[in-house]
């Protein structure tokens, strides 16, 4: 392994509620993250609605590893490494499509939709009759895969706990995003992809528990009208929940944020689907949750957005992956999610609200990424990398709420950093191999 003096001082800082700025632009840490973190975590790859039919596939990534996520003729979803077993060529070089099988352009080995090797050209002449064991030469399946509510995940660690166990208590909260309607979610369109000079951890740190930044970072979007909050500090009177591997934020008083602008019939359907404890939040003036992050790099956002004065604000929802490309460089994948059984007008409105708020052209997204890149670039400085960042917000000030019906520790304010501190504890303990 690399420099043995790398991790202990960072761990010590995190224990004291601090963080050295250098973690956001460190090639050494990046290599460790790939090996010890991304290769051992449950990584979100795709949503089942992206591959609805037999033969449908998408190409997806875990850090540098490319995978084919496909649906076979028996309707089973597979996640296999996109590397030919002969010389390693990518057998799939497109982002999405429908195929009968995958045929490698180099020497023509052919793999079935589930990755099984089905043909080797000139096999008898070149290898001898029955000399190649096809069963052992299929595309490599991801060591572990799992699907929860249509969300397809993979883990490169064969010894990892199951997806269900990993999600654990986070499911109580992820329900709010994924279980609003009978038919569940679908991806509207395709994920938008773009590359930013910012570290993936800054994005995760923001979505896991940064209710604090909105009044200044997103001030222009309130002024121009796309963010329909009464004031920019709409998460001040909120709730932040910290789990070991998950953090989430709710608003409380802002009336629009309470329903996130879902129309009454959809709110009524949610009440039917959510369990009584979940419904009790809605009865006690707590909003549907807005921002969240599942460790390591899957974020959620559900919020209202305004795109026209002719219609009320519409709720939009996005899932996003902060795919690490290099130290300080991230590819953002942003999915616009809608309820599959919602009326077409709702989907349209939700899409427009998403577009003006998040994604490549989203006005809130723009200002978020601008912050992250302006932290990442200076973070490699000799002096700056040692700068100790303050992560003490709420520490010693707030106690966990004792009447909160959900799992984890809930704090009666979203202008606080409990979920961020939990994220960093999880991050460092993962790099320590714990």
């Amino acid at each position, binding site marked *: 392994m690399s420099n043995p003096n790398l991790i202990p001082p960072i761990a010590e800082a995190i224990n004291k509620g601090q963080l050295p700025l250098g973690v956001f632009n460190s090639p050494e840490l990046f290599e460790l993250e790939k090996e010890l973190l991304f290769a051992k975590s449950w990584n979100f790859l795709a949503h089942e609605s992206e591959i609805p039919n037999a033969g449908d596939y998408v190409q997806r990534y875990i850090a540098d590893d490319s995978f084919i996520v496909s649906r076979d003729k028996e309707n089973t979803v597979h996640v296999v490494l996109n590397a030919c077993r002969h010389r390693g060529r990518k057998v799939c070089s497109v982002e999405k499509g429908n195929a009968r099988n995958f045929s490698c352009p180099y020497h023509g080995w052919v793999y079935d939709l589930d990755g099984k090797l089905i043909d080797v050209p000139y096999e008898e002449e070149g290898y001898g009759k029955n000399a190649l064991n096809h069963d052992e030469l299929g595309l490599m399946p991801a060591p572990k895969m799992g699907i929860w509510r249509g969300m397809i995940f993979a883990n490169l660690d064969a010894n990892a706990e199951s997806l269900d166990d990993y999600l654990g208590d986070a499911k109580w909260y992820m329900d709010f995003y994924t279980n609003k309607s009978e038919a569940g979610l679908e991806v509207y369109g395709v994920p938008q*992809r773009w590359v930013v000079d910012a570290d993936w951890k800054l994005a995760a740190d923001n979505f896991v528990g940064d209710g604090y930044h909105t009044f200044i970072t997103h001030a*222009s979007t309130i002024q*121009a009208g796309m963010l329909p909050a009464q004031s920019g500090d709409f998460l001040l009177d909120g709730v932040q929940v910290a789990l070991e591997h998950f953090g989430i934020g709710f608003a409380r008083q802002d009336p629009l944020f309470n329903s996130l602008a879902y129309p009454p019939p959809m709110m009524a359907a949610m009440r039917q689907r959510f369990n009584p404890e979940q419904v009790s939040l809605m009865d006690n003036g707590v909003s549907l949750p807005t921002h969240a992050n599942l460790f390591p790099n899957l974020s959620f956002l559900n919020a209202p957005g*305004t*795109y*026209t004065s002719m219609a009320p604000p519409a709720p939009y929802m996005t899932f996003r992956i902060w795919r690490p490309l290099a130290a300080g460089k991230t590819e953002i994948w942003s999915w616009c999610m809608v309820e599959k059984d919602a009326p077409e007008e709702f989907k349209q409105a939700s899409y427009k609200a998403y577009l003006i708020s998040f994604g*490549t*052209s989203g*006005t809130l997204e723009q*200002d978020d990424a601008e912050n992250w890149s302006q932290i990442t670039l200076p973070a490699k400085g000799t002096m700056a990398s040692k700068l100790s960042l303050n992560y003490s917000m709420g520490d010693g000030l707030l106690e966990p709420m004792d009447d909160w019906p959900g799992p984890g520790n809930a704090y009666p304010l979203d202008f606080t950093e409990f979920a961020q501190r939990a994220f960093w504890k999880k991050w460092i303990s993962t790099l320590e191999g714990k």
Partner: protein
Amino acid sequence: MSVTDSLFREIEAFIYHEAELLDNHQHNEWLDLWDEQASYRMPVRVTHTKRQKDQEFQEKFGHFDETKEMLGMRVKRLCTSTAWAEEPQSRTRHFVSNLRINAVDNGQYELKTNLMLYRNRLDDAGHDLLSAERHDVIHQVGGEWRLLKRTIYMDQATLGTLNLSIFL
């Protein structure tokens, strides 16, 4: 249908003027060039095999899918002092070329242009370079040219720029 030389020059001048307004950050003046029925779209492009190339551009899903009102909200935001992604502003240069004009019914003209967009920010010596083909529909309102429609076909599936806080 082809157009006369003088009309070609007139439309070309309009398109150059539009690019100049963007490069000068004259966003309100730029917005005025748009018809009330404006449609400004940039479909998301997905890498497909040649056989499935007809699905390359998402019809229903874009990086932009704007009405005039949405463009107006974006411009309004850029005019505030807290639109951080454009504070300080991007330095852009819209290189517009390969103009092709096709006259259609109702006094409307379909234009195709190639766009090379240079973008530089802050004190960084590097730049983002975005390339696209634009399909526009223009017509005249009260003797002035107005943009009715623009569809931007990017030459990238994964966009190589921090955000789309600029217009193409």
